[in-house]
């Protein structure tokens, strides 16, 4: 498509053979320009992935032992269950919190919408470690939240907000919320306001217009945001390790522990492969409905 455009712009290569030769050279040059980037990803990602997949089937020869363990041993099952449960809850909360934010940013006057977006993007650009630390300060036993709640008299004893699943969920929602808002906003921004006005002028109540016109048009953004948050959450490590206090074990922590504590590469690689298959399957299914670039655009 681009190649024909190039030929049209080149009067002096209008001859068919010359054009063919030109195109061939052009392809070769483009692949050459592509090669350093592809090489880096190939050596540092694709080769190790192939090796991991190989390891997961290996225990003194070909074996399904590691996979059997995942599907029979309680600790593995439980970890995957916890990982998926946390990811579902986080995705749902992020949608409930992110949709109104994105909606506000898309309908407010420019100055206000810039402010809203800035408040979304600033945490996005702050180190995950900084945010994990902040949540530890806020949520710990004598932390800001507990002290204020005690002070107001809403509770009698400090709540256990951190070093557990609740703390993990709160901090994870905070970290992943921008990944929900940004694709949502990108979609909503493109919804023509004429449509909303048309809906209103035809006698629809604002709620009706929102439900029948705006919301359906924003669904591709909802899908992109939910996919991104869910998939990122499946692979989360730093936040559950720090804020969860190591007690809420997610799939990625299982991989890390098997390697660093037990040097059990077989188990680690089998867990990795199952996790990777889940992630790729989700991306594959969703990419049939929404282009991959749109989902990853916010990342």
């Amino acid at each position, binding site marked *: 498509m681009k190649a024909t455009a190039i030929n049209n712009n080149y009067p002096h290569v209008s001859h068919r053979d010359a054009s063919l030769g030109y195109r061939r050279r052009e392809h070769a040059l483009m692949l050459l320009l592509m090669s*350093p*980037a592809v090489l880096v990803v190939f050596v540092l990602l694709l080769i190790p*992935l192939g090796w991991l997949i190989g390891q997961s089937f290996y225990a003194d020869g070909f074996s399904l032992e590691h996979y059997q363990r995942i599907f029979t041993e309680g600790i593995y099952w439980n970890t995957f269950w916890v990982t998926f449960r946390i990811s579902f809850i986080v995705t749902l909360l992020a949608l409930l919190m992110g949709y109104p934010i994105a909606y506000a940013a898309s309908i407010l006057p420019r100055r206000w919408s810039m402010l*809203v977006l800035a408040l979304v993007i600033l945490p996005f650009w702050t180190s995950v470690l900084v945010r994990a630390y902040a949540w530890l300060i806020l949520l710990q036993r004598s932390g800001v939240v507990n002290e204020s709640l005690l002070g107001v008299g809403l509770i009698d004893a400090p709540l256990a907000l951190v070093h557990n699943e609740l703390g993990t969920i709160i901090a994870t929602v905070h970290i992943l919320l921008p990944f929900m808002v940004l694709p949502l906003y990108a979609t909503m921004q493109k919804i023509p306001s004429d449509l909303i006005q048309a809906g209103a002028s035809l006698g629809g109540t604002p709620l009706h217009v929102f439900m029948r016109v705006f919301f359906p048009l924003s669904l591709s953004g909802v899908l992109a945001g939910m996919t991104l948050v869910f998939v990122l959450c499946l692979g989360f490590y730093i936040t559950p390790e720090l804020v969860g206090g190591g007690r809420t074990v997610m799939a990625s922590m299982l991989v890390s522990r098997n390697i660093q504590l037990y040097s059990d590469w077989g188990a680690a690689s089998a867990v*990795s492969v199952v996790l990777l298959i889940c992630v790729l399957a989700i991306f594959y299914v969703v990419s049939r409905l929404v282009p991959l670039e749109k989902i990853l655009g916010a990342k």
Partner: protein
Amino acid sequence: MNKLSLSRISFIGYVALVLIFLILPLLIVVPMSFSDSRFLSFPPSSFSFRWYETFFNNPGWMSAAKTSLIVAFSTALIATPIGVAAAYAINNSSHWLMRYLKIVLLLPLIVPIIIVATGVFFIYALSGMLYTIPGLIMADVMLALPYVITAVTAGLHGFDQTQEMVARSLGMNRFRAFMSVTLPQIMPSVMTGAIFAFIQALDETMVALFISGGQNQPLTVRMFTALRDEIDPTIAAISTLLTAASFALVLLLVLARRQPTA
């Protein structure tokens, strides 16, 4: 409209609450870092710079900060040209291979980071790159490439390629035509890509946890270990500095975007 105002007020209130949820954790760290107390208290009892002094006087923290800066600068310097070349190729070629190579280049974003870390650890253990600075840089280059490529591809989409064609038909070779005609016009998106690469390398924790060690630990890895073991207020000082650095870079980004594009 009157009936609406109640729901409108509750909507605004809800949005404000979520925004406070988003921004509060960033604001809480700053007063903590200026506290005089060893224990976490908010608001802090008295003002002091002692945690900043601890940070700047501790050779361990300083060497970690140096490693982080070296790695982040090198990553931006390497990932940007490689990424620009790839983005140029993606934008100019309709070769059937490109579709697949494009997906390959997005993989560092798609594959869960723990799996990336495990894989890089394995390949470095084989090649003796474990616990080295070049090892850290190359891993960060891989992770930064998708950001650079995405940013620059967007820039190239908004650029009229025929300008480069004109320069070439007037006798410039392709490289010179790119450098003197195309590059200056897509500069804001190239800068955006470079800043993305820098921040990503500065922030990267997961892969570094696996492949860095000894003298060559970046700041994030030291912070992670410190946070896991005990809550040391020095972290608040470092966090404040890091947050300030991020804000400065975002500002730079906004300024880079502001530059007029053709």
